[in-house]
């Protein structure tokens, strides 16, 4: 399907952008593992973390010609590891999230979600504006419910681009930082995006 190929292309570009931005943020090389995205209804999602355990979530609302939201979700342990990496603490020494940790995670979420939204907007020519990211600590189920409710009253009218954002840094040998990543849109608006993608010539 043309949309699948295009989405894959956008996803790869967004991952490369995120990798470069992440490297700049942590001051060392970062390697993002590209996991192909899929388009699903909310009830069909297969979260790689949670869903019953509390997770750290960076929520980035998107406004403009289409409205949506990007969500980056990390388990508590991964959030500790990642914030430790961002703040340059020794591996395994972060045991709780200070305000500085939360701010660093928000920055990371903003980079990843922002790269995705910007790439999608550039490819389709559809204006999408990222709003300020918010960090919360909740179950995946509750977070999703709230994110969907902000878009529409009916969960069936929302679809998600589902993928993972996993990366490694060579100085942390053998360590794989894993997170679950979603971009939510109303079904009709995602169709508009996919139609716009069909008009984009193949590279």
């Amino acid at each position: 399907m043309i949309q699948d190929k295009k989405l894959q292309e956008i996803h790869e570009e967004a991952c490369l952008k995120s990798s470069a931005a992440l490297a700049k943020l942590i001051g060392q090389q970062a390697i993002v593992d590209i996991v192909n995205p899929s388009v699903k209804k909310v009830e069909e999602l297969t979260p790689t973390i949670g869903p019953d355990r509390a997770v750290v979530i960076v929520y980035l609302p998107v406004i403009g010609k289409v409205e949506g939201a990007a969500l980056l979700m990390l388990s508590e342990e991964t959030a500790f590891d990642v914030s430790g990496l961002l703040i340059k603490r020794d591996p395994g020494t972060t045991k709780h999230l200070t305000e500085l940790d939360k701010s660093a995670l928000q920055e990371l979420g903003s980079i990843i979600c922002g790269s995705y939204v910007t790439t999608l907007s550039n490819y389709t020519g559809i204006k999408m504006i990222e709003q300020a990211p918010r960090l919360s600590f909740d179950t995946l189920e509750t977070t999703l419910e709230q994110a969907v409710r902000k878009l529409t009253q009916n969960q069936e009218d929302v679809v998600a681009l589902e993928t993972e954002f996993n990366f490694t840094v060579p100085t942390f040998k053998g360590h794989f930082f894993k997170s679950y990543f979603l971009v939510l849109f109303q079904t009709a608006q995602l169709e508009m995006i996919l139609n716009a993608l069909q008009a984009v010539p193949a590279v």
Partner: protein
Amino acid sequence: MTEKYILKLYVTGETANSRTVIKNLNDILEREPKDLYTLDVIDVLENPQAAEEDKILATPTLIKVFPEPAKRIIGDLSDRGKVKSGLGLADEPKQSVNSDENFGVTL
């Protein structure tokens, strides 16, 4: 004499993602003569130094080291045409019908 291709494939861990890309590449290469290439599969979790030296930004990344120019292909390598064109490999040979009489054109 045919130049031997030197290929490196960077993956992260033994994940489903890694298995898919290795399978996709093997599917492409198995139709090529075995002595045409050498392939080194590198796990960035096991060998981060190699990834550092090759300035890897994302996995999966396939690098054609030789023949020059060096080329990188990022992604799951599911687009056979794109991979072959990126590597500079010819399309699969189709059956040739008396090439002399057809002025060397492969049909």
